[in-house]
């Protein structure tokens, strides 16, 4: 005979304000098998948990139902409490009467009625709960970091420091990411390369860190503690182990008209190239789309000049398979494409640039050697207009609904740097709002306005028109003085919104992690678990989770590393016992379940059965590997004989819930 305890939480007034908790406790007390039904202010508090524990001991309970917040919040809390007094943790059920009842309903009568039904469903389910024991599976002591920007670099360095091997997979020929392209960083104005490149070198010299540059993740299998990842090492046509990075091949290559991605296409590079001087690994890469040798078979200059014989025109993509315990995603961001913004004339005029292009124009290693010149005629711009929120905070389909967060600050930085270096330049910034929360951020912005006399004008730019004399007419409205303005600018800089990298979406599918509608990775809890994904063993670092500046990215990178280290420190992890199992007597070995299993957890074994006529027969039956099964339940529905069932969500349990709700 079942002895069930029901505990109804007030959650302060979160539940008690709209649900009559006493009535819920009273009503559930009359359910079959319920021997005790109580309500309490905060069930998750120490004293609340003690109340549950004492009741379990006193009434010798065989199952408990907690009517409280979402099981995603406190299921583990109550499972632990139950386990501490000897009740199997899987005999605990949660009725979600906060997120799915009190918070969404206003009328006390109907909300209470619903809470009672939800409680009844949980009681009906807990009657059928079986005690489950979790198995254990070993943890591979190696981490994978996907993306080698500042987020990935920080994460890898921290994990390596804890003594674990870590691999970085970077799709570009070098690590460094967006930060390597940036000239100066706000709010201190220190040089980005000066603080980034030492970290890049540290990565390459740390014997625990293994960099797979020019590589992509092509497949992910397995689960927390035991992922098997296939990494595609794209053919760079240069033997990484031989190349010394001397750069002679890049000097001699006759194909010199390839747009240089690192400088945002503002100058050209050769077909064989090293992205920038401090690249890590400093290895040349041949661009197969432009190399004459690879396209026509005629040239081969680089292989002739290479003194170590590193050039290999026959190199193929390589696939390597590696096992990892934890995976950190650090795929970062990109500025959006501005093709749809005809009003800003970005595609028509070379002197309309994005902010990242301006970074390169101002960088000493950039196309102009650090002198700010107009891309069109290489003259000094004297009037520069910055346009904020290009594609950010947009309601229409062209842009993004969110704030890109970093644009206000980097624009203040650009304006300040330009005014500092070229005091004869007039700088205008058109903004919707200036958002500068952060340590020393607002002070920085105020310095731009007060000390450097940057003209901040509240209003959006309506139209940018290139004129025949080389000037650019910027038509805008000043919302504060309600005037229409025309500015004859020499250079227009657009603060393009940032979006997650295009590789993030297919990666999320491979990793079975969730993304939001903007393709940013979703964290397990927006406040309390900001660096973990909902999928165990997958952690998030940097701008792949949402727009971030460098300090935040580094902080999150370290946080993700800490979480990954916490996992890698364990020798084994507890498996989810809510897995499928097959009733061998009912199974007829039809293979339906095997076909739908996404993890290959189901195999078939020949088993001896005693038949009614006392003979024995060997039959083929399904057998589930509990370490591999993730408990999705696809097989339970596919099984025609009803032999497959899922622990914790069995057919009878769900049916009981359905019955209780429909009654």
């Amino acid at each position, binding site marked *: 005979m079942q002895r069930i305890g029901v505990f109804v939480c007030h959650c302060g007034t979160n539940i008690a304000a709209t649900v009559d908790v006493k009535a819920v406790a009273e009503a559930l007390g009359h359910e079959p098998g319920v021997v005790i039904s109580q309500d309490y202010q905060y069930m998750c508090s120490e004293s609340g948990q003690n109340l549950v524990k004492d009741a379990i001991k006193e009434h010798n309970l065989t199952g408990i139902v907690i009517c409280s917040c979402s099981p995603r919040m406190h299921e583990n809390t109550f499972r632990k409490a139950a386990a501490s007094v000897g009740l199997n943790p899987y005999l605990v059920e949660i009725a979600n009467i906060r997120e799915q009842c009190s918070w969404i309903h206003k009328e006390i009568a109907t909300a209470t009625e619903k809470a009672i039904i939800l409680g009844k469903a949980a009681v009906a389910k807990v009657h059928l709960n079986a005690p489950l024991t979790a198995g254990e599976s070993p943890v591979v002591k190696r981490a994978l970091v996907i993306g080698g920007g500042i987020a990935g670099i920080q994460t890898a360095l921290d994990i390596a420091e804890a003594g674990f091997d870590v691999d970085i997979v970077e799709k570009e020929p070098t690590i460094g990411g967006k930060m390597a392209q940036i000239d100066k960083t706000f709010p201190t104005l220190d040089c980005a390369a000066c603080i980034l490149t030492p970290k890049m070198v540290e990565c390459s010299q740390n014997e625990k860190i293994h960099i797979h540059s020019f590589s992509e993740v092509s497949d992910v299998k397995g689960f927390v503690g035991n992922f098997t990842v296939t990494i595609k090492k794209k053919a760079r046509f240069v033997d990484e182990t031989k190349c010394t990075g001397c750069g002679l091949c890049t000097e001699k290559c006759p194909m010199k008209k390839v747009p240089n991605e690192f400088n945002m296409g503002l100058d050209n590079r050769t077909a064989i190239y090293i992205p920038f001087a401090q690249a890590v690994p400093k290895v040349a890469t041949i661009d197969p789309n432009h190399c004459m040798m690879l396209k026509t078979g005629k040239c081969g200059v680089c292989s002739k000049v290479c003194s170590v014989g590193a050039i290999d025109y026959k190199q193929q993509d390589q696939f390597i398979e590696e096992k990892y315990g934890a995976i950190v995603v650090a795929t970062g961001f990109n500025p959006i494409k501005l093709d749809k913004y005809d009003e800003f004339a970005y595609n028509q005029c070379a002197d309309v640039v994005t902010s990242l292009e301006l970074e390169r124009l101002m960088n000493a290693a950039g196309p102009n050697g650090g002198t700010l010149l107009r891309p069109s005629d290489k003259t000094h711009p004297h009037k520069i207009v910055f346009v904020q929120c290009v594609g950010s905070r947009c309601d229409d389909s062209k842009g993004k609904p969110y704030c890109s967060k970093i644009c206000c600050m980097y624009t203040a930085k650009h304006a300040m740097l330009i005014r500092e270096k070229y005091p004869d330049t007039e700088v205008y910034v058109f903004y919707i709002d200036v958002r500068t929360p952060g340590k020393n951020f607002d002070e920085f912005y105020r310095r731009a306005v007060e000390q450097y006399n940057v003209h901040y004008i509240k209003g959006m730019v309506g139209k940018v028109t290139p004129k025949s004399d080389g000037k650019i007419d910027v038509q805008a409205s000043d919302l504060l003085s309600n005037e229409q303005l025309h500015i004859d600018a020499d250079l227009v800089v657009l603060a393009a919104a940032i979006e997650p990298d295009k590789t993030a979406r297919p990666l999320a599918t491979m990793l079975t992690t969730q*993304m939001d509608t903007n393709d940013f990775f979703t964290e397990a809890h927006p406040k309390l678990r900001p660096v973990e994904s909902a999928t165990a063993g997958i952690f998030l670092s940097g701008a792949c989770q949402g727009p971030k500046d460098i300090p935040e990215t580094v902080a999150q990178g370290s946080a993700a590393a800490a979480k990954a280290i916490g996992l890698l420190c364990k020798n084994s992890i507890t498996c989810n016992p809510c897995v499928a199992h097959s009733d061998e007597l009912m199974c007829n070995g039809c293979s339906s379940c095997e076909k739908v299993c996404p993890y290959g957890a189901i195999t078939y074994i020949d088993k001896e059965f005693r038949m009614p006529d006392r003979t024995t027969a060997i039959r083929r039956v399904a057998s589930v590997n509990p370490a591999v099964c993730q408990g999705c339940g*696809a097989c339970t529905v596919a099984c025609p004989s009803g032999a497959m069932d899922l622990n914790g969500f069995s057919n009878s349990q769900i049916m009981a819930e359905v019955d209780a709700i429909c009654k």
Partner: protein
Amino acid sequence: MQVNNNFEPVIVAFCCNWCSYAGADLSGTNRLNYPTNVKIIRVPCSCRVNPMFILRAFQKGADGVIICGCHPGDCHYTSGNYFTRRRITLLYSMLDFLGIERNRTRLEWVSAAEGAKFAATMQQFTEDVRKLGPNRRLEDLRCRKQ
């Protein structure tokens, strides 16, 4: 057919643990209102929803059943929601055969970030079922409330 305004439909929602249940929680956290008629059953994946559960719900007196899962391609278990999609398509033809209105069963993709979509979907579905009136076709008369 006369629409009974006092009719309060019983609606069962099956929500997958990873996306839709979290989406339902989010609509709660954001205090987005939807009718009390909707009662949620948590399942690990939408592919755990056996069509038998849906028929059972109709038999026991449910007026509408909605299944919510992750968006195609986003399934926590890689491919579970594809199975659900096919199974529900097949179930529709069976429901047609049984004479149960198609609109009483619905399959919807709700991600963990779509609290607003969850609330709006539940509101719409409840209204749709309310218009259809009580489900008498598969109701087990022994279960009917006195």
